[in-house]
């Protein structure tokens, strides 16, 4: 029992509700939501260290013993993601302070960011399947509002598709929960896992696991990513950065939970399918990333490539690969937020979306240019930066099990990431400068500081890999040995 566990979800919910009543006081709203994220980050650090000492923690809500009650479980994997979410969300909020505009702030923008973070943290921490669904819906409803807030025609047009696809995928989620409850009679992760281990994973259960795979593929953008580039490029920069950093990661988290804790008995079927899907995602994402000249589309397709990348680790499922995936997940949340913020800043500075119309930006805004360069190198996996370790470990894992096709796809897609971003860098940052000294818009401090913070974070993640590796190894260890999780939940 540890009441700290519920705070990462409860604090943002409460803050979101309070902020509704503080509508006229924009400054107060900013401070409250920012401090909630900081407090969440501190709680994340405390929980991580407690888990190191005591193993996975749990909180039985209302004192109902598992498997009967609703419960929250925190192992290193979920708390690492909660911590990264809080940090990324606080930095995106910093960016929003000076970019989002008064009309948004008066229309409950900060409330909905808080609800979004509550949903994300809730999905990471929950210990049973139905609450995963509920937390998913909390997150999705907040994201529906954030994507439409502003009411421009593009936003409405893109959000209709986003909402329709998510409603249908939530329906499939509900159906798969119903089937699983019908066959196993429980929805608690640990209880499900131990029951399936007892009865063996029958073909029926494998089919149900593939329905779950469909749902989470839709949510994470694994192969079924056609909705993603359109809807991620419609909202304003700060919101797009939050989406790119957080939303697909929840689907990936759920997939890791399902296929390492519950349905891990038939890897020749389920994990092979995940591997094929991940490979196709890498190919499709790479084609998308180089096909467009719209910065937002290029950046959105980079999200798709990262999803394929992380799930290659799950498909391979060796200790190294899982560790690499976790490392890459954390890295990707930080660096995708940075990339979306930089792309958004470029658009708002020049007023153009296509990269052909921007040129020579580095002469006017040198800091912006070099930060984009660092983000690019980090995504491509150049050694001192944070992308390298994840890529190396995933590569090692694929070599170990001998799936050389995945290995090739992983590293070729890295080249495509590099190429797509290098093209943006060469066309819009180098060359003749179009903006003359008089027309140059000053780069606001409020836009620069969040980007600098995220750049420092991606360098720090790479250089400080040793400090974080303890937690990552523990997370991978818990994922690969479901008994640790089950023991922490059921036998106490």
């Amino acid at each position, binding site marked *: 029992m540890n009441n700290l566990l519920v705070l990462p979800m409860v604090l943002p919910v409460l803050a979101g509700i309070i902020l509704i009543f503080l509508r006229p006081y924009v400054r107060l709203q900013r401070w409250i939501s920012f401090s909630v994220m900081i407090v969440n980050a501190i709680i994340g650090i405390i929980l991580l260290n407690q888990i190191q000492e005591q193993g996975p923690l749990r909180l039985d809500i209302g004192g109902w013993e598992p498997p009967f009650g609703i419960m929250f479980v925190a192992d290193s994997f979920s708390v690492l993601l909660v911590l990264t979410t809080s940090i990324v969300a606080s930095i995106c909020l910093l960016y929003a302070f000076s970019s989002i505009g008064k009309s948004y702030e008066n229309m409950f923008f900060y409330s909905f960011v808080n609800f979004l973070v509550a949903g994300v943290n809730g999905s990471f921490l929950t210990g049973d399947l*139905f609450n995963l669904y509920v937390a998913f819906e909390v997150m999705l409803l907040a994201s529906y509002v954030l994507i439409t807030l502003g*009411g421009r025609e593009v936003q409405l047009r893109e959000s*209709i598709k986003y909402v329709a696809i998510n*409603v*249908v995928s939530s329906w499939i989620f509900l159906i798969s929960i119903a089937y699983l409850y019908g066959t196993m009679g429980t929805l608690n992760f640990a209880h499900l896992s131990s029951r399936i281990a007892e009865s063996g994973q029958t073909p029926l259960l494998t089919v149900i696991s593939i329905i779950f795979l469909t749902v989470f593929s839709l949510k994470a953008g694994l192969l079924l990513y056609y909705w993603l580039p359109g809807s991620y*490029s419609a909202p304003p920069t700060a919101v797009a950065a939050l989406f790119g950093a957080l939303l697909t990661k929840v689907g990936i988290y759920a997939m890791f939970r399902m296929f390492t804790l519950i349905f891990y008995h038939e890897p020749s079927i389920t994990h092979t399918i995940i591997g094929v899907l991940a490979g196709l995602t890498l190919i499709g994402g790479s084609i998308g990333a180089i096909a467009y000249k719209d910065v937002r589309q290029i950046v959105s397709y980079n999200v798709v490539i990262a999803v394929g990348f992380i799930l290659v680790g799950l498909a391979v499922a060796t200790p190294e690969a899982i560790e690499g995936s976790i490392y890459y997940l954390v890295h990707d949340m930080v660096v995708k937020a940075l990339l979306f913020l930089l792309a958004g800043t470029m658009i708002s500075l020049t007023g153009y979306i296509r990269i052909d119309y921007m040129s020579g930006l580095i002469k006017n805004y040198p800091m912006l240019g070099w930060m984009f360069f660092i983000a690019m190198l980090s995504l491509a996996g150049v050694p001192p930066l944070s992308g390298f370790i994840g890529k190396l470990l995933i590569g090692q894992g694929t070599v170990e099990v001998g799936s050389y096709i995945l290995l090739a796809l992983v590293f070729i897609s890295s080249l495509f990431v590099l190429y797509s971003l290098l093209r943006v860098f060469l066309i819009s940052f180098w060359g003749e400068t179009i903006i003359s000294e008089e027309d140059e818009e000053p780069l606001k401090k409020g836009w620069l500081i969040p980007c600098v913070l995220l750049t420092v974070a991606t360098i720090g993640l790479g250089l400080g890999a040793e400090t974080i590796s303890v937690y990552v190894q523990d997370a991978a260890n818990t994922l690969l040995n479901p008994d640790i999780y089950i023991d922490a939940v059921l036998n106490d």
Partner: protein
Amino acid sequence: METLITILAGVLVTVATYLILSRSLIRVILGTAILSHAAHLLLMTMGGLKQGSVPLLGEDAGSYVDALPQALILTSIVISFAVTALFLVLAYRTYQETGTDNLDELRGFKDE
């Protein structure tokens, strides 16, 4: 009883699929609403349609019904109402802004 309810859920899914595949936005929304009701019926059947007392502890009854599917459906009904309401408002705003509710005319990603 279970068979009947399952068939009913199937009919609802058929109707919903038909509606979702149409071009008018309002029909799509009605389709998703019906779709979620089919899912609720399925959740209920999957828990088993038993006869028994209300799920209370400490009362004397031979058997109690399973409380979990009911709790699940209650939550999921609330969520589906919320999503449908939001979706309807969204459709209305889109109609105001674009002047059409035909999904064919809402497709595509134009450079602005």
